């Protein structure tokens, strides 16, 4: 007996196979349509949340692999470090120590100013801290999985911060885990401003993994090293969280166009902790305050005291209009 698989000539797809392919494609399109039209509480979204929770152990295993690879890489690098590199590291260490002293001075100064303005409590963030247990397995998106979920009070839309600054935003929640879209994801957009000049802009992720400053006025001077922080506009992210620093400004010849690249301060590496922000008094103040808040923010900005000097940054009641602007920039133009 000759099987239909034994020769190449017998491998033509039968009509039933074509019908099956068409049927499955139709089912797929129906599923995609239902998924796109239903809300976050829709049945497919719920199934996806549960599936994300079920596959979390796999992602955790992947995070372990990544951590082991990083550790091995560091070990090899340390073992093969040259005298020149060692000297450079010593110098860098000395510089960091100096910066630490300066930062401590600035922190204390910031605390004093904050106490004077009686807004110290506004910087307290109420949230849940969890560990990164997985990274996205899709080449087109940049997201992580964190081991805190709705059981811990996490909800979609909440901001996520790392040890050094903003990491991303919760997009999907299951009882035990949540998925966080990183700020470097092409679909991510964060309303922000330059700390030095307080000029508003939007920090947008890109396919190449970099962060770009957009919607920045052409007249604004931007220089390498400028700190970019969240503005709190739109209410998606609390105000005053550090996003990163400007690392490159490329001016287009003959035009006023320029490309401003921002390096994120906080990265979400495997098995490191991040905090999901439930509420921030700073954000509430920004939403409800107006020009007074802006004045206070401007005053505190002048001292370049730290990353959290803008808790009372006001929105002038333009949240609704900015939401539209933000959505356009965040969801793609």
């Amino acid at each position, binding site marked *: *007996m*000759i*099987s*239909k*698989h*034994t020769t*190449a000539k017998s*491998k*033509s*797809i039968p009509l*039933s*196979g*074509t019908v*099956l*392919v068409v049927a*499955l*494609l139709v*089912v*797929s*399109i*129906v*599923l*995609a*349509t*239902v*998924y*796109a039209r239903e809300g976050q509480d829709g049945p*497919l979204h719920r*199934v*996806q949340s549960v*599936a*994300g929770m079920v*596959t979390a152990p*796999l*992602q955790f*295993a*992947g995070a372990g*692999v*990544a951590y082991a*690879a990083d550790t091995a890489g560091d070990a090899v690098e340390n073992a093969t470090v040259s005298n020149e590199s060692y000297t450079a590291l010593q110098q860098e260490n000395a510089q960091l120590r100096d910066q630490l002293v300066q930062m401590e001075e600035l922190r204390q100064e910031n605390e004093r100013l904050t106490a004077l303005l009686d807004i110290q409590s506004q910087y307290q963030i109420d949230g849940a801290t969890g560990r990164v247990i*997985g*990274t*996205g*397995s*899709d*080449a*087109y*998106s*940049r*997201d992580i999985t964190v081991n805190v979920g709705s059981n811990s009070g996490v909800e979609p839309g909440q901001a996520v911060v790392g040890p050094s600054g903003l990491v991303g935003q919760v*997009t999907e929640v299951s009882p035990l885990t949540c*998925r966080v879209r990183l700020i470097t994801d*092409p*679909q991510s957009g964060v309303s922000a401003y330059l700390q030095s000049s307080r000029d508003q802009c939007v920090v947008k992720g*890109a*396919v*190449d*993994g970099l962060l770009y400053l957009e919607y920045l006025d052409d007249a604004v001077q931007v220089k390498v090293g400028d700190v970019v922080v969240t503005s709190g506009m739109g209410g998606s992210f609390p105000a005053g969280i550090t996003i990163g620093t400007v690392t490159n400004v490329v001016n287009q010849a003959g035009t006023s166009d320029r490309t401003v690249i921002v390096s994120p301060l906080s990265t979400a590496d495997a098995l490191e902790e991040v905090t999901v922000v439930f509420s921030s008094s700073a954000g509430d103040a920004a939403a409800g305050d107006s020009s007074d808040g802006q004045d206070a923010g401007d005053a505190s900005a002048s001292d370049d005291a730290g990353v959290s000097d803008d808790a009372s940054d006001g929105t002038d009641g333009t949240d609704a209009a900015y939401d539209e602007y933000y959505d356009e920039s965040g*969801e*793609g133009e």
Partner: protein
Amino acid sequence: MRETVVLIIGGIVAFVLQSVLAPNIAVLGAMPNFALAFVATAAMLRTSDSIVVIAFVLGLASDLSTGGTVGVMAALLTLAAFIASRAASLFGNETVTVSLAISMATSLIVEAIYAFFYIATAGVPAMDALLLRALPCALYDCAVVLIIMPLMSHLLARSAPSHTAPTSSTVRLR
């Protein structure tokens, strides 16, 4: 029956590799799609309804686990199975060169469609999506196909008693 079991196990392995290994071997953000590589390879080696169904289920599982739009990868993998099996039946001569060409074409088509979907829904620049993601991902997929094809050819040949084992996996796949 045994062939179907081999395909199911292969699908599960591809899913696990995609979740565990793929993010850790990404190069400049481009990572291989083990599910796509598996489906393309299996469809070239075996033309049966089971691989189409497995491709659909694998895509659905991928959509659910990655948080993407449910149904998109399911449709793409189903399409990949169809394209690869059709191409193999028309042009396949069981050599590595033709198999690689078919898998390359399948990967490029699927990755390009996915990129266009992403461009349409996420507002990503077309050139970025195509040049920084679709093309390198398709090349990565082909590299994976090169690795898993001899293995799957061997496994599927063993699962089908009427098949003779390949005399040389580098020249003749079956």
